[in-house]
């Protein structure tokens, strides 16, 4: 029997595997129940509705209006809200910094600060700059306030929302039908939920696997086997990745069923492969990198420290994100916490591919590092406990 299948069987017998399945299925089903309200989004918008929801705007004028109002208010009360690591942090400026800020506001509006303050309640700021100059001024403001303010470019461009019109709603609906084939939009939301748990769960598998030999006091025996370190680590790694991904994939296949039925009932041809495709692109690389990191750190330290490192990384990635929709960059936890937005997603999809490819590459490097560390430990083990056998099992 190959090492890979032995490892898979070991995982099948382990408690951690079943705890993972229970947690994952409960979490996904409570978050993503396929409730009627969600499925109703397939309904076509009708003219004359009271509202059609909101959309993030990329209109420079709307972004500038919103941000200039905000910066004037925060300067007026000298209290700037920032979220440098996802936690609220209030910034108060000193006299010199406030003067610099007032100068920046003058450049934005053409109005002196004293004039603004004298009639603050009735003041409506005119924005007198081009968008590029506005961004430069806001970048200067961010330098004064510090990291995580509302005036960072990504923050402004990702968070300024405006009400949708009937035309916007129709465009959104058409994209959902023609580009996402209904299931695409739900598959992204599924990945958005799953990606949070999968940013941390694989680390427990990795640490458990790497420490199992030591717990069972079998390190010496395994060190003395003739099989190569690369074969041992790669089969362990692959087995863990596969066994974590399988329940995710099965859950995805089951979760998609009500959406396929609803689409078919509405006469829309659903994309049967969407959940699988999104899971492979979105979730598998994350399982790979988290497992690889846990292997490398656990082999290196011989302890449970990978859990803390991974927890901090996952948490920082989640909390430092300026938006829950896109802006993938090189974030570990990539989010798309909304239904719809197919056009916006397609504009950013290359960034997602780059992000995930980067983590697949990094996983390969970390597995190689794990093999190297394991080889060194084996040699050391051989030196301490006797020679490594050259042949046969």
């Amino acid at each position: 029997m190959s090492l890979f299948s032995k490892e898979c069987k070991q995982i099948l017998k382990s408690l951690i595997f079943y705890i993972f399945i229970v947690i994952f299925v409960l979490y996904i089903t409570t978050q993503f129940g396929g409730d009627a309200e969600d499925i109703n989004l397939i309904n076509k918008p009708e003219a004359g509705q009271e509202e059609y929801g909101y959309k993030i705007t990329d209109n420079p004028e709307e972004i500038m209006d919103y941000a200039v109002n905000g910066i004037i208010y925060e300067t007026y009360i000298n209290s700037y809200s920032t979220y440098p690591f996802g936690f609220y942090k209030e910034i108060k400026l000193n006299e010199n910094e406030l003067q610099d800020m007032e100068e920046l506001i003058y450049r934005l509006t053409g109005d002196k600060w004293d004039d603004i303050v004298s009639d603050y309640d009735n003041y409506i700021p005119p924005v007198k700059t081009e968008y590029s100059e506005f961004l430069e001024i806001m970048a200067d403001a961010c330098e004064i306030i510090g990291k995580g303010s509302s005036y960072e470019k990504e923050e402004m461009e990702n968070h300024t929302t405006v009400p949708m019109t009937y035309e916007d709603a129709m465009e959104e609906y058409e994209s959902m039908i023609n580009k996402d084939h209904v299931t695409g939009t739900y598959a992204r939301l599924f990945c958005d939920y799953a990606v949070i748990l999968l940013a941390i769960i694989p680390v427990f598998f990795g640490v458990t696997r790497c420490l199992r030999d030591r717990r069972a006091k079998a390190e010496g025996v395994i060190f003395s086997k003739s099989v190569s370190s690369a074969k041992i680590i790669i089969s362990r790694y692959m087995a863990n990745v596969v066994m974590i991904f399988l329940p995710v994939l099965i859950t995805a296949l089951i979760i998609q069923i009500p959406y396929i039925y609803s689409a078919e009932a509405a006469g829309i041809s659903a994309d049967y492969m969407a959940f699988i495709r999104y899971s492979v692109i979105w979730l598998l690389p994350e399982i790979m990198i988290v497992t690889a990191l846990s292997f490398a750190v656990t082999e290196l330290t011989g302890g449970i420290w990978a859990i803390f490192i991974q927890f901090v990384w996952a948490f920082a990635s989640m909390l430092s994100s300026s938006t829950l929709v896109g802006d993938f960059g090189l974030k570990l936890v990539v989010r798309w916490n909304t239904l719809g937005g197919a056009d916006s997603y397609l504009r950013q999809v290359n960034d997602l591919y780059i992000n995930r490819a980067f983590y697949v590459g990094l996983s390969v490097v970390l597995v190689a590092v794990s093999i190297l560390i394991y080889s060194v430990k084996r040699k050391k083990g051989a030196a301490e406990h006797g020679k490594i056998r050259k042949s046969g099992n």
Partner: protein
Amino acid sequence: MEKFVSLEISFVKKHYFKHILLALLFAILSGAVVSFKNLNELQSARVMEMYVSILGIILFTPLFMPEQDREIWRLEQSKKLSVVNLYILRILTAVIFLLATVSIFIIIMRQNNCEFPVLKLWIFSVCEILFLGSIGFFVSAVTNQVVLGYMAAIMYYMINFGATEYLKKLALFQVMRLGKYDFWYYMLAVSVLLFAAGISIREIRSKK
């Protein structure tokens, strides 16, 4: 008693010290990550519930670290000494660190002009952190796998970001979300239950 104290000192030195250092590092880093100035009640609760509560996982989950080595566990069982007392002493040590850390955070926030009901938030934070820690403690006690203890506690913490309504009175982040303090006694009761059940089940299992 002397013997217990000396065993506890040995446990702290050989096994627990690294975790205390980690908790201290976590507390020191808070200055860079979290603001303690001019927070209102809900913002203060957010610091305690989302940030400081992680201390529960760090302090209470690794209390069975020495017994990960089954030979040590068997050796302990073979002695006349009551291991239950030993475990209770470990819990008390962790509780002392917890009380001290929570108090320091509360004092720092008060000195920085944060507005919140001091005693209420102190009691709620201690109970919430104890509750989160007791989950890790219980799972690592009954499985004798510290990794599973961390997994259970961390997963419980993370699940609270989206599924609080299903966790009812045992949901975390109640104060920062709803401004409600009246769940602390449920959390305290369940914590005591989990600590007691963890030790009892472990004892019963080890004697089989």
